[in-house]
């Protein structure tokens, strides 16, 4: 049964400073809501939703994309439609554009925000693997100040993250240094639109003289939260790419992944398909046709 709207307080202070004041005056008491594509869905299904909600929608200080030459800063309330429409993101972080096109439907992309996707922390989050392989940094803000942490250190457990109760996700920063990297992102789901990933894999890799000089591999739905697969990276680093080195990389993924059975898929399927995606990338890399 649907939740009762009248049982919730929802306020829209309209500025970042006012939101931070509210959150510092009663840490943990107010839950931010942006586009509502998680909270309003839970509300519709009658699942527990925080009693006190503070709206971040329509706060211009949070909805921005700022090109800073060495990097790009994406405000937490930028929508996935904003990301898809941004020329520099399309050009220099194409995996982010592609992942953004996978978020629900056009109507969802108009409302769903980058910050919401990351703070919600779904293991299947569409944008997360791309951000992980681009070495993203998260900027957190509170009335005490701001701090930056690697995105890879943001998720700390199933639906848990490194934010303090009075902190807000302010922006995500992507360094601009992947022009030479081979880049890969593939999601396996039931339908192109509106389907949550059974498994997704992202890779950025740099080959030098036939050997892997840099590699980042990240996955959705292979762990309780979106993760870098560091054992897979270690297995490949410094190696040439051939049938002898692909096998240990597959084995590392099978060992490192900790997927679950749920309504969308099984752990066995996810592990196997995750390894197949990795192998697909490595074969493309070896034959030189890895798509960007």
């Amino acid at each position, binding site marked *: 049964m649907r939740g009762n709207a009248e*049982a*919730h307080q929802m306020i829209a202070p309209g500025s970042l400073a006012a939101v931070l004041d509210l959150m510092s005056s009663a840490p943990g008491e107010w839950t931010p809501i942006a586009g509502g594509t998680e909270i309003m869905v839970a509300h519709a299904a009658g699942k527990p939703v925080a009693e006190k909600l503070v709206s971040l929608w329509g706060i211009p200080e949070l909805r921005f994309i700022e090109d800073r030459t060495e990097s790009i800063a994406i405000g937490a309330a930028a929508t996935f439609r904003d990301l898809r429409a941004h020329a520099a993101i399309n050009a220099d972080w194409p995996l982010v554009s592609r992942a953004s096109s996978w978020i629900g439907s056009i109507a969802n992309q108009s409302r769903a925000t980058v910050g919401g996707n990351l703070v919600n922390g779904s293991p299947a989050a569409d944008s997360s693997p791309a951000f992980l392989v681009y070495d993203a940094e998260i900027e957190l803000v509170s009335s005490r100040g701001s701090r930056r942490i690697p995105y890879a250190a943001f998720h700390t457990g199933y639906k848990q993250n490194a934010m303090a109760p009075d902190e807000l996700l302010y922006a995500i920063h992507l360094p601009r240094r992947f022009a030479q990297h081979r880049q890969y992102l593939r999601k396996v789901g039931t339908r192109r639109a509106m389907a949550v990933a059974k498994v997704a894999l992202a890779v950025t890799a740099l080959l030098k003289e036939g050997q892997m000089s840099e590699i980042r591999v990240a996955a959705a739905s292979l762990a309780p939260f979106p993760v870098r697969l560091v054992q897979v990276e270690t297995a490949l680093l410094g190696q040439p790419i051939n049938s002898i080195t692909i096998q240990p990389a597959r084995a590392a993924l099978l060992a490192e992944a900790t997927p679950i059975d749920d309504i969308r898929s099984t752990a066995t399927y996810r592990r196997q398909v995750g390894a197949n995606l990795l192998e697909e990338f490595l074969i493309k890399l070896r034959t030189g046709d890895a798509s960007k």
Partner: protein
Amino acid sequence: MSAPWATIRFILNGEPCAVHAPPMKRLLDVLREDLRLTGTKEGCGEGECGSCSVRMNGELVNSCLVPVIQAEGATVQTIEGLATNGELHPLQKAFLACGGAQCGICTPGMLMAAAQLLDVNPHPNIAEIREGLAGNLCRCTGFMRIFESVVKAAANESTSTEEQAAHAR
């Protein structure tokens, strides 16, 4: 416990309006219950089916997922605002001509999604039409007649624009 209600003002189909409602009340319910605009339909109620699609500040949204407080100051267009001065929108004409509507529950949302698509991309190819309407589910038509309707509307719209240009000359 009952939370305080709020007065929310926005522009609805070109006219200013104000409603007094719980701030978390869904825009969908405000449209249908408070404002008596029942053209916007509820299908799934969780952002999956697109029946409740409306346009807010020029973007397509599922009104079932918009708490009404977030519509404060916004420009909202519903299916009731698609025709202008009693003249059906080219998409509405095309849906009639091509059999793009059957039971009608998905139709208002489908039209709003299609209107959004044509505003952004006046000449979409079939893949772009499919993507633009991928969040709108129809159980009757099998989608082909809907896609044909959008193709026809896009063609007609460009014809009528060219005609207008010819007249202007």
